[in-house]
């Protein structure tokens, strides 16, 4: 990664978030709340205390995994938004695998859930990536539609074949025994899903920046024609990137089942997959930045209830912020390559040659 891209990778999200905050403040003022007060509440609810930090970290964990789900295929040149679908089918598969192995030791059961979630989630996004590479179907569209299919599949199964007859008004699968659920990091309320998320981001970074395979992936994403010219197996690279991305989302679904709900139900589709798309774009598809952005958005998500209590704002206010952030980040993509004037401010001599014809 070049210094110019690094600079843009930080400057563009900062500009986007700044714009989103400004628009959000206008919105708050519009509905009669003090913008400063609302922003202060978001901060307090996200980072104001150790308790608040734990709330934020709990929400950051699935966001990290879901961010990677878009970022890894995007690095290979395939934009997918199927995170929610992969999350849900991953959770569903994990629940099935977990329930099938409850007779075994907890660690084995969790390993089975881990594998099932990752493989099924991976296959889900690989399908979208493969449809684009081999059949020319736009992966944004196909993965978006796969979300609906994934959620429908979840509802079908938890209301039908996998339903626990005791779950009366709220259909769900049989619960996992507490002993076979994913535990908490000692001394905290935070489950081990956070470790999965952090490790996945670090691994993702290592894979992309430090390995031969990561370079192949980035060549494929940077210019497919050049990748073909040097004989890289484009199809295999695209499918693998799709699989790894989907596996992360599926893993997030597994964590949601194994650590939060203890069973699969409609409740596991809580929108982390969709917010993951926002995380990936805010991070400009970089795994390390996903770590930071997930924490920030985790804090924003954690503050929803607090806004309701202290400012009498609806719970959905946070969705307004998310929407504004998404709009800003998409609009700010237009700034890529045009921040030369800012670079000049920070570095006395710009290293850009622009389009000087030497």
């Amino acid at each position, binding site marked *: 990664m*070049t*210094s*110019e*891209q690094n600079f843009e990778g930080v400057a563009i999200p900062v500009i986007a978030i700044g714009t989103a905050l400004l628009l959000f403040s206008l919105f708050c003022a519009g509905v009669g709340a003090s913008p400063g007060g609302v922003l202060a509440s978001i901060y307090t609810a996200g980072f104001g205390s150790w308790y608040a930090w734990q709330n934020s970290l709990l929400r950051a964990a699935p966001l990290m995994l879901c961010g990677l789900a878009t970022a890894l295929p995007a690095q290979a040149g395939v934009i997918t938004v199927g995170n929610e679908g992969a999350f849900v089918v991953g959770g569903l598969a994990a629940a099935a695998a977990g329930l099938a192995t409850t007779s075994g030791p907890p660690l084995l059961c969790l390993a089975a859930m881990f594998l099932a979630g990752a493989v099924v989630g991976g296959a889900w996004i690989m399908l979208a990536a493969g449809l684009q590479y081999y059949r020319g179907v736009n992966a944004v569209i196909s993965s978006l539609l796969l979300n609906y299919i994934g959620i429908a599949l979840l509802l079908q199964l938890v209301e039908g074949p996998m339903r626990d007859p005791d779950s009366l008004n709220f259909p769900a699968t049989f619960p996992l025994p507490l002993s076979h659920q994913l535990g908490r990091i000692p001394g905290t309320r935070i489950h081990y899903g956070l470790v999965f998320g952090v490790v996945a981001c670090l691994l993702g970074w290592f894979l992309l*920046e*430090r*390995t*031969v*395979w*990561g*370079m*192949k992936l*980035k*060549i494929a994403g*940077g*210019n497919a*024609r*050049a990748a*073909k*010219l*040097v*004989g*890289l*197996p484009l199809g295999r690279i695209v499918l693998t990137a799709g699989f790894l991305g989907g596996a992360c989302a599926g893993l997030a679904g597994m964590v949601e089942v194994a650590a939060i709900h203890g069973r699969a139900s409609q409740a596991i589709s809580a929108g982390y997959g969709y917010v993951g798309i926002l995380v990936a774009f805010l991070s400009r598809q970089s795994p390390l930045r996903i770590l930071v952005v997930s924490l920030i958005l985790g804090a924003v998500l954690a503050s929803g209830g607090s806004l309701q209590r202290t400012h009498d704002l609806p719970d959905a206010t946070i969705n307004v912020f998310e929407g504004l952030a998404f709009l800003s980040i998409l609009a700010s993509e237009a700034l890529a390559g045009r921040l030369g004037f800012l670079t000049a401010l920070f570095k006395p*001599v*710009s*290293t*850009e*040659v*622009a*389009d*000087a*014809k*030497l």
Partner: protein
Amino acid sequence: MHGPARVEAICIGKTFGPVRALEGVNLTVPSGTFHAIVGENGAGKSTLAKCLLGFYRPDEGEVRLDGVPVSTPAEARRAGLGMVFQHFTLAPSLTVAENLVLARTDLPAILNWKKEKERLRTFLEHAPFQINLEDRVEHLAAGQKQKVEILKQLYLETRVLILDEPTSVLTPAEADEVMTVLNALVRKEALSVILITHKLREVMAFADDVTVLRRGRWVASCSVGSTSIPEISSLMVGNAPLREQSARTDMTAGGAVLEIQNLSVLGDHGLPAVKDLSLTLKAGEILGIAGVSGNGQRELVQAIGGQRDIASGEVRVAGKPFHGTRADIRECGVFTLPEEPLQNATVPGMSVAQNIALRTFDQAPTAKLGFLLDRGAIRRAATAAVERFSIRTPSIDTPIRNLSGGNVQRAVLARDLGARPPKIMVVANPCFGLDFAATGFVHNQLVELRNGGGSVLLVSEDLDELMKIADRIVVMSDGRIAHESTRAELDLAVVGRYMGGHE
């Protein structure tokens, strides 16, 4: 306002980052003259043209048209400055008439085609040449397209026409025709012409005056009558030492190494671009493929390089089918370098160093333990390549898209001909956009590859280049091999006719 205008560029300076593209350049084109600007690539010709047109705002100096300063594209357009680019700016799916009308900037919201066509016909009665207004542009030959571009400028009542290498996509005969038209227009006092070119023969035959630029500076201006091709060439190059030309060792070509058998390839629109083409490249030879661009050369090179599917037929290397996989490329030692390398052979957003490593990053020493990337090794290899191939870049970490065309070309050549040269090199227009010294350098590399027993398939639109280094030349026309001759028995007139598809 009609008729030609006088153009003055006074002490123009333009800087891009650390690069001084133009410095104190003066240019005076008296009204109704034909002025040529020559210089090596990177001399600042195109930058100067863009300053004249207001696309670039010069850091220093001023552009005046008939004494009135011009500084924005809109002002330049109003003042009557127009440009014809090297590549066509016509909409291929529209007719000539539609292209001409749509070029107008003052179009009403609702077009009255009857009125517009009436106007066009009146205009054409006085035009220097005739063209069928209802022909679709995509069905026109390259020379005719360039004429439509000129017609468009006349229709827009351009008073000063700037042309940037307008003949590089034309056959020699077509180029002469276009130049003759321009010359006649100047003689009729219809406009002033500024021609940017590197073809000194055209300058001598058609221009009144010539200005020589070198490395962003004005070197000389004189009337064409008072100078000569050798004099202009030496002014363009300055006292830069020309590389010694590698001697071509006499060698008889060996057995076939690359065989193309009945190859058919579809073009971008699904129509056959390469048609049942067979060709054999032997060991120790440079086989040149001449032809006007757009006759299937691009698709042929892409098919060999694995960038385009083969519809039928086969490419065989050393007797075995070649599919362009990484293993094939490495075992057979076949590197392909298509034209427009930034789009086709690099990852524009990646650094110069990473792009130079594109063929070797997955092997030792850049790959450790088979999977770890040694970024130090990549940087060391890149530093050596930058040095050896004189790539001008702010640093090896600069994204390659920030380099000029000539330096991108050097970088990909450094990658392909550098540390581990191939046995067979398939290369398209490798010297496009390079200066004399670099062109000589590339030619030497290719000749040395051949002298060492390697083979080169050289696709080029530059006949001079082919005549200089190729052992055998075939002409490609309409997706087929139309003509073949050895270096010794080459007849330029015959080759030109085949290139034009006239035989």
